[in-house]
């Protein structure tokens, strides 16, 4: 299992870079993960989505779909794709330190 270092702490990630253990994630790690994904700066709406992802994961054990994000996170689908151009559900899950969502929608 590969490990990587975020914010000075070593964490275990899978081959695709998703956290193996979401409890190892801290907010201080997010900006560095985001930069690796091509997002130079995390703005307020980025954080809104990241926090929503964490909360959904904590409650349901899986990250939300883009449809759910668009309906309930307070950020529209259009904005989500502007914030996370390489796929909001996937990118935001990685930055939020939760597993990659496996839905088809």
């Amino acid at each position, binding site marked *: 299992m590969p490990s990587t270092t975020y914010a000075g702490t070593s964490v275990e990630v899978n081959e695709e870079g998703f956290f193996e253990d979401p409890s190892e994630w801290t907010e201080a790690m997010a900006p560095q993960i985001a930069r690796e994904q091509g997002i130079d700066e995390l703005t307020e709406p980025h954080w809104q989505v990241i926090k929503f992802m964490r909360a959904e994961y904590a409650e349901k054990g899986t990250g939300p779909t883009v449809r759910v994000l668009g309906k309930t996170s307070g950020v529209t689908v259009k904005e989500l*794709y502007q914030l996370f151009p390489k796929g909001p559900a996937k990118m935001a899950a990685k930055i939020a330190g939760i597993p990659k969502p496996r839905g088809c*929608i």
Partner: protein
Amino acid sequence: MTDTIEKVSIIVSKGSLEGVYPALIMANGARAEGIEANLFFTFFGLDVVHRSTIDHIKVATVGNPGLHLATMAGGLPGVSTVMTHYLAKKMEKLDIPPIPEFVEMIADTGAGIYACKASVDLFDLTKDDLIDQVMDIITVGEFYAMAGGGQIIFT
């Protein structure tokens, strides 16, 4: 896992529920993976982007052996409507949006939505007959130019 797909252009030629959903799911799924996607609606697929038919896409209950329903039964009035309603309920539980919402969402993901010029002419339609998400009515040549460098999927 080194080869990647950067762009898909999906042609939708059918106006039945089972002909339309796979294309929408593939387009939406492409965008979710960061893949550029274009949808090109042609022939009966135009029903999906036509204002008066987008709400009425139904599953084919005749000539559809996969449904395991006797052809005579499938042809009875209302069977297609009932079957479509049944599927819609199951899909909602799986977080699969109804077609109008799905098309709007796919447009919001940044995917391109286009109508085929030959089909629009064939059915005597104009851009006003089509939903707002349709970016343009294009020729097959323009479609190929747009699809350049990517994968083409026909449904």
